[in-house]
């Protein structure tokens, strides 16, 4: 059971790492919109829109 002396500290560090990742993700707005990304993933067309025809902005 000597492995515990290594594993327990590692797991503690991992949890703190997980907390850090979560806080970063939350800061960047990952959890704001739960609906949008699910819809966006279904769109097939990822091409950039060409400026066809009409003029842009005045």
């Amino acid at each position: 059971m000597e492995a515990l002396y290594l594993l327990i500290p590692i797991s503690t560090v991992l949890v703190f790492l997980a907390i850090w990742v979560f806080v970063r993700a939350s800061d960047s707005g990952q959890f704001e919109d739960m609906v949008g990304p699910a819809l966006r993933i279904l769109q097939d067309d990822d091409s950039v829109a060409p400026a066809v025809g009409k003029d842009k902005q005045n």
Partner: protein
Amino acid sequence: MNAASTPIDGDCFHCGLPLPAEAAEQRWSVRIGQVLEAMCCPGCAAVAQTIVDNGCADYYTTRTAFSSRIDGDGLVPPELRLYDDADSCRQFARAFENSAESGEPLLEASFALEGIRCAACAWLIERQLARLPGLQLFNLNVATERLQVRWNPAQCKPSDILQALHQIGYSAYPFDAARQGEQLRRAAKRLFRQTFIAGLCMMQVMMYAAPAYFAAAGSIEHDQLQLMRWASLLLTLPVLCYSAQPFLRGAWIGLKLHRFGMDLPVAIGIVAAFSGSAIATLRGAGEVYFDTVTMFVFLLLCSRYLELAARRKAASTLERLQHALPDCATRLSDYPHSMHGDLVAATKLAAGDVLLVKPGEVIPADGILLSGGGSIDVSLLSGESRPLPCAAGAALPGGAVNCGQAIVLRVTQAVHDSTLSALLKLAEQAAQAKPRISQWADQVAAWFVAALLLCALLAFCAWQWLEPSRAWPIAIAVLVVSCPCALSLATPSALAAATDRLLRSGVLVVQAHVLETLHRSTYVIFDKTGTLTKGKPVLRGVEAYDHSMGERYLQIAAAMETCSAHPLGAAIVQGAGATLDQTSVLRAEAICETAGQGMQAMVDGVIYRLGSASFVAQLAAVPMPAMAPQDAAMTPVFLGQAGSWLARFDLADAIRADARQTIAYFQSCGKQVILLSGDDWKMAQQVARELQMDGAYGEYLPAQKLALVQDLQRRGEVVAMVGDGINDAAVLGAADVSFAMGAGAALAQIHADTVLMTDRLSAISDSAKLGEKTMRVIRQNLAWASIYNLLAIPAAALGLLNPWLSAVGMSLSSALVVLNALRLRNKI
């Protein structure tokens, strides 16, 4: 395309609405793909053309719902430029501190979007925005319909962004971050983070605690045990320092105010358990309760998060309030001499300005009518469903809708002093003076906490004298085993579960005390228009002087009213539509509407007049013949031709089908049900009689309604109020518990404790039934908690319980309480 967005031949390809007669000649059509598709109006055609030209025609193949239709109430392009000037820009945009690389100042703002109907809309908007130069970042949040943008003011103006969105058919307006909705959003974000971290640490700490529970004493090496304890301590630190913030801060504030609140026992329990466990860890001997601490914090945060999520949903309608008063107005600077108007921001209007308000527009500020007009719809302000006639010299309130011809008025008060703003202030005042109903829970908690601390102290002192080594563990055991969960968890979690259940059936509970207070209430007050009635006039009866011709007269009247925007006209058309057969469609020509009186038109070569008695009398020129007596509750509309009276149409606002049932339920619970309305007395009494209510009051102004409610409260009654329309907002705030119908004005929804998003009045009786069950569950929980505490605390004080057992007991007790509360999620 699926069935939901497959256009039928007679409908507009873009918005799905039926094509009107003019569009049938294919004057407005757009080539999409290889097919020439018909459009219903120039607006839809322009949007469709823009979409095709931008190479986004795929939008029509991937959309799952019809697009929204922008008509008059969206922002028209010239008005968008008002957002460009520095003053208004500063109001909604703020500077974004970017890195020093580009060195150019960027501006950042949020816009609220309207018109998003499906996933394809999000794609379309993002593609459109990607083409704008100078737009550095845009972030569309589909769930909240909010667009966050960052732009370079040198290359791009706010009006460019709004214009681009307008071109593809979406209206947007700047969103003020200081609003209440934004604060709730930030609070929800913080609470979510706290809950997540508490949950994460709780799971890990429990993993470390499991060996200690299951192993026989002494079978784990001391070193390994210490390691696990240290790990648990490190993992509990984030929970204590970050996740437990709400409780620690609440307890601290309570202490400063010399009040024992419910946060205090929670905070003391957490801190005592943690410090005892920390000491035990440092000393290397004794029990640790880190798992108890983390689990406790996590459970409490979960129930708080559920409540907050419901409140956020309710507060999102607050942003719609911005549309109650328009942002801009047409000012006639040179009035008597010319009708040339300038577009100005509504906030810049001053007393003495002359404004032009077109038919259908909202009047921006209080003023006196100079010319034009004829009738205004004040339903937003007074809840009255009938439009009011107005003549030159009449005072017009800001917020009223112009139902007649174009109005020229002189402003009497600046916008922030208008009637609407005053009502807003009244509503805010009343909301702050709301009676605190949860005081009894606080008081019981205060006594409980005091008793508990005393008990722990006594136990500590007693054992210190008897056997010093056991003193501290026993004191900890007493503090830990006592489950303030009955007060901290039982009531909030039962209410949260019930709130969630109600939300799924369309009732949005904003304040947690609603169910409890509704259960206790003795008086239930209903508003009339829009609450007990549907808020739309309906044709109730046709009295023809020549009985066989009733049908024909109705068709004639409907033909005259088809192009009218009047609510009563719409009711006649609808009433006729139900009985009309498609073969005999009449057309009215030479339509001439006299505001406030009626209209005159020629049908099949004969001139008819439809309107008030005096108006028709002018054409008929004979006295009105006697006929069936007129019901005081109905609005009569007369039809006549030269030389004779033809018919009388009775219109009334239909009473909801489930109104009687709801009122009967409340009466069976022993509550008094009364009607309080701003409409006239006779109508109020009529409705009350029909629904067998206990009382009726009519023609009450908002201040009088408020006085009545406060009078009842002074007499010791608990008042529940159901209302609609802005004029109810102050009363809704003052009542002990309030309900607002979802179709009503946004303001009333915010100051009410509950919003009925479904159109059913019976949702209120459903809430009351659920409230009864909730109270029962709460009582069960309290009973269990009392028994548990009465048994467990003495046992711990006497040394019968070791702290390990206390922790398990406390955790099981709280789990039991929460599970019992969760039963409510599936009840009726």
